[in-house]
């Protein structure tokens, strides 16, 4: 796969996403006019968008993986996940109330977050290397959001749009992987008190630690090392769920404990 955008175009598209984030007004998919855009184009746009957000004073505290399940990959016609940075300003604690006006078309998913104890880099990182570098796992929720109108996204669009990341909520309990298998960690997801989904760690690329290794290997050619303390959102354990003002979401993880967030009423 190769880049088909000029760097001026990538900048222009990155600026459009930057403005959409600012105004809360979504933009049409880039692939509407340029259906040939692929993953590399998406990352070229993402890179420009990220540099603008960093210039505004944002800091990267980790990464999120998207498209980690077979159904999502089939939907977008890819055979690998994608990633985007997680900014420190978008991290909430367990029990937080999230402002709804921060998002355009929010949806939510429960994930296992991996917290690194040591830095980790590719290109030959294995799940076992990821395990050695891991401090522990944390219960987490991700609000995904699309700055592309009506979520009508193709691969390049979502990659450009920070892999559709909106915000995360992270439990303060970081549980060392000690005598349990992250693939088998069960999770029960409920909305307003009603159980609506369940899953286990293997739903994310077969293994949350394989997801971390994939990320380290994918970042390596870009010259990026995952620093110690990085938060890695390893991918949804169930199909994503729409979010409305006033909703309360809770993901109860075996081994890791629960995490709850409330969406503010409008």
């Amino acid at each position, binding site marked *: 796969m190769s880049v088909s955008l000029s760097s001026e175009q990538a900048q222009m598209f990155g600026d459009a996403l930057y403005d959409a984030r600012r105004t809360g007004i979504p933009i049409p998919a880039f692939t509407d006019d340029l259906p040939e855009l692929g993953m590399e184009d998406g990352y070229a746009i993402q890179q420009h968008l990220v540099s603008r957000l960093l210039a505004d004073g944002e800091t990267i505290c980790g990464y999120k993986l998207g498209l980690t399940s*077979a159904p999502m990959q089939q939907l977008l016609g890819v055979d690998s996940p994608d990633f985007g940075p997680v900014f420190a300003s978008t991290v909430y604690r367990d029990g937080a109330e999230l402002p709804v006006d921060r998002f355009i078309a929010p949806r939510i998913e429960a994930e296992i977050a991996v917290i690194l104890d040591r830095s980790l880099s590719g290109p030959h990182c294995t799940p076992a290397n990821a395990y050695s570098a891991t401090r522990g796992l944390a219960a987490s929720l991700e609000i995904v959001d699309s700055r592309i109108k009506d979520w009508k996204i193709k691969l390049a669009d979502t990659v450009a749009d920070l892999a559709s990341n909106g915000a995360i909520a992270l439990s303060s309990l970081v549980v060392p992987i000690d005598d*349990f*298998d992250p*693939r*088998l*960690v*069960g*999770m*029960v997801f409920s909305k307003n008190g009603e*159980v609506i989904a*369940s*899953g*286990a*760690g*293997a*739903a994310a690329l*077969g293994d949350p630690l394989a997801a971390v290794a994939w990320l380290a290997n994918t970042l390596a050619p870009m010259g990026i090392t995952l620093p110690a303390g990085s938060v890695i959102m390893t991918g949804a*354990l169930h199909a994503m769920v729409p979010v409305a003002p006033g909703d309360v979401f809770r993901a*109860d*993880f*075996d*081994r890791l404990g629960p995490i709850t967030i409330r969406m503010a009423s409008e």
Partner: protein
Amino acid sequence: MTVHKHDIAHRLIDAAFHRKATTPLTDDHPDLDVETAYEVQNAVVQARVDGGAAIIGAKLGLTSAAKQKQMNVTEPLYGWLTDDMQLDTGETLVCSKYIQPRCEPEVAFLLAHDLEGPHVLAAHVIAATALVFPAIDILDSRFAGYKFTGPDVIADNSSCAGFVFGGQGIDPRGIDLRLIGCTFEKNGVLLATAAGAAVLGHPASAVAWMVRRMAERGQGLRAGQVVMAGALTEAVAVSPGDTVVARFDRLGTVELPCR
């Protein structure tokens, strides 16, 4: 009710015996209701017992909200397991013995005490249980293409056809079966993941629901019997050469090769 229970029971018994699927009973008997369907089920199970089989437990079906909606029913259903259905740990499924076998991962209970009555709760189920096991339920609808309504599948003994337990059982006391993670794979490909809450919020709650319904019909479970608590994921069709594996956190793994 103009349904002749024994006639339609024989249709199901013949379908199983000749391994030839039939059409939904409700095509010919649109007025077949749930209570009559359970009476047909009793006749189907009694025929197995008359043929020398022993009742060794029960299973739940349609325990997920999604499946109930799909089948247009508002509660789960149950059926009876007989000893001619059991496969021992490590045994191979012989597909030619079935019409259209499908497998699904479940939590199974082995009872230490009798369990019956209208007031049974999840707590009583846990207290009456000796061990819980990882298990694979083998379904085989006697209706072509698994096309049926709620009363049809009840009459068909809830598609019961077989089951196998993993070799490791554990005491259910002190673990939260609601949160137990499960992965289900066929031929090394991950099909689905789930947690125990996928069955009615808690596998023991599902069993308790069944025992209360059984009590309304004068039925109950005996010490030593097994209970399959309901599927955690969608069922998958199996053919000769396939291997399905269900892994459960804390409970262990169960594997079923097919030939």
